[in-house]
């Protein structure tokens, strides 16, 4: 472990921001109750005749802390904190899917080798050479409406997220497999399952944690991108990406409608990236600054 005061200060600020977002998401109903709003109620009184919010900064007031959404007058603060729920839940869910698949596939490929490893390695190559965003957009558009959208997004985004972590874990498992303590365990009669669980996986824990942390911001970004394009989480469930997509039409008349959800998305992604960088530097002495 290598401690760098400046890097650690950054990482600490990132971790604090992540914690704040988690709290905001967890206590979204409480926060909205304090404000006295919810993300679904229309408030046409807050708009002028052309649908633009009345007043400073997109209708910021004691009633509407972040102003209101143009055309509907829904409370933007409520949309942003409930949007945090959507982003973090989908981000965490998709990361979990990707990490579980990546660990299962990557470690077994490295451990068992042979034709299985070759098939896995080829599959990873194919998935890297795949227009995944385009595929996700197309799939999101024609999947039947009976499938719940957030689940579909989690499954699809997670299913395209595993190759990077699987490739890294495969490489590390290949190295670990030849270590003397693994040979010793095998010599003492441990079966493959036991060796994997007791000898290999504990040594991969740090890598898995770092990779999971660095995957989360990317997953949040993909959910937001899909919702931005109109094929992600369906309305009226609040989503930062969809609000930003809606803000395109209003960027000239009500820029604050872009700034609040956009700022939230940027801050959350940045915070996760900084924490991931800090973790990686702390664990990898070679690149530590």
């Amino acid at each position, binding site marked *: 472990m290598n401690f760098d005061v400046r890097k650690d200060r950054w990482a600490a600020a990132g971790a604090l921001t992540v914690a704040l977002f988690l709290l905001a998401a967890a206590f979204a109903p409480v926060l909205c109750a304090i404000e006295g709003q919810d993300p679904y109620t229309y408030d046409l009184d807050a708009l002028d005749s052309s649908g633009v919010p009345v007043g400073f900064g997109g209708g910021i007031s004691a009633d509407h802390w972040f102003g209101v959404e143009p055309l509907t007058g829904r409370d933007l603060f409520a949309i942003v904190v409930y949007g945090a729920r959507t982003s973090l839940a989908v981000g965490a869910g998709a990361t979990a899917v990707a990490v579980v698949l990546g660990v299962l596939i990557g470690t077994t490929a490295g451990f068992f080798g042979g034709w299985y490893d070759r098939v896995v390695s080829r599959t990873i190559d194919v998935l890297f050479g795949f227009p995944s965003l385009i595929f996700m957009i*197309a799939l999101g558009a024609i999947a039947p409406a009976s499938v719940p959208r957030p689940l579909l997004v989690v499954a699809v985004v997670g299913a395209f997220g595993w190759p990077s972590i699987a490739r890294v874990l495969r490489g590390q498992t290949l190295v670990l497999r030849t270590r003397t303590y693994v040979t010793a365990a095998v010599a003492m009669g441990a079966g493959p399952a036991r060796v994997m669980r007791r000898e290999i996986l504990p040594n991969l824990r740090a890598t898995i944690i770092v990779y999971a942390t660095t995957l989360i911001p990317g997953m949040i970004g993909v959910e937001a991108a899909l919702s931005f394009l109109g094929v992600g989480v369906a309305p009226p469930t609040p989503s930062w990406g969809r609000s930003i997509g809606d*803000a395109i039409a209003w960027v000239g008349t009500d820029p604050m409608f872009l700034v609040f959800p956009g700022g939230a*998305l940027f801050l959350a992604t940045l915070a996760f*990236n900084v924490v991931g960088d800090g973790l990686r530097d702390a664990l990898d002495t070679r690149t530590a600054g």
Partner: protein
Amino acid sequence: MTAVRFVGGRIVGALVVLLIVSVGTYAVFYLLPADPAQLSCGKPCTPQRLADARAFMGVDVPWWQQYLDFLGGLFAGRTFGSGPAAVHCGAPCFGYSFRLDAPVSTLIADRFAVTFSLATGAAVLWLLLGVGAGVLSAVRRGSAWDRGAMTFAVAGVSAPSYLVGLLGILLFGFTLDMVPVGGYTPFVDSPLDWLWHLVLPWCVLAFLFAAVYARLTRGQMLEVLGEDYIRTARAKGLRERRVVGRHGLRNVLIPVVTVFGLDLGQLLGGAVITERVFSLPGLGSLLLEAVGNVDLPVIVGVTLFSAVLIILANLAVDLLYGVIDPRVTH
């Protein structure tokens, strides 16, 4: 001889990947319960009309048969329906949009120039900016420049493209009125207008991608500069410029080129988000329109076309490895 085998092997590998991707894509989209014939049948949709539409589109056979027809169309072209109502789709036939009444390949060809202009222009900018900033940061590690550039880079990595794009439009389009807020003019109509419309999208994409490349280049360069052969080069009395430029950069370029191939391939296959933000009528917009209309042949065609581009880009990267690092071919 080894070089020929290396190149041949890579090309065969690329073809195999392409075949697998196309089967997968085709199967997924045609197994979903979105019947293209049903969608185009109109109302009232009698069973007879539906059956006619299915036969006309060639979707009245199992999906693997449809896939084989599709493959055949790629090489020989194909004709849908018969008699005076028949439509012909010449080789390479990427499918036929019954909704737009045009071959998918024509639709793609019409839009590709836009996406190509956007992607290649941005790529030149981000390579220069990203690799340049990364090398400088590594060489002056810990300096004010390094800290500033890396702070900027982590912001660039975290910022979604549509957010940066919209803020750019807000600032340079609406507030400063320096560039148009969207749209596209073909190069052949007016090169100046073409440039004018693309400057902002280029800069936005270049900023976001340069951030990734600066981080990657810096990390690789730091690792390479710690190697023995760098110490040897310095010990020989080579100037620092040459040590970094020749001995360092050449080894840094391999991972950079790998990522570059993937990125450029992805972008050429449709910069969906950037095209949406800047109202550029490229491949990504074509896909989004097709998604809105549930125009299945176009969706499949564009997906496969972008897969082809990514695989070609990867193939080009593989072959470039041999040029950058001759050891690869042996």
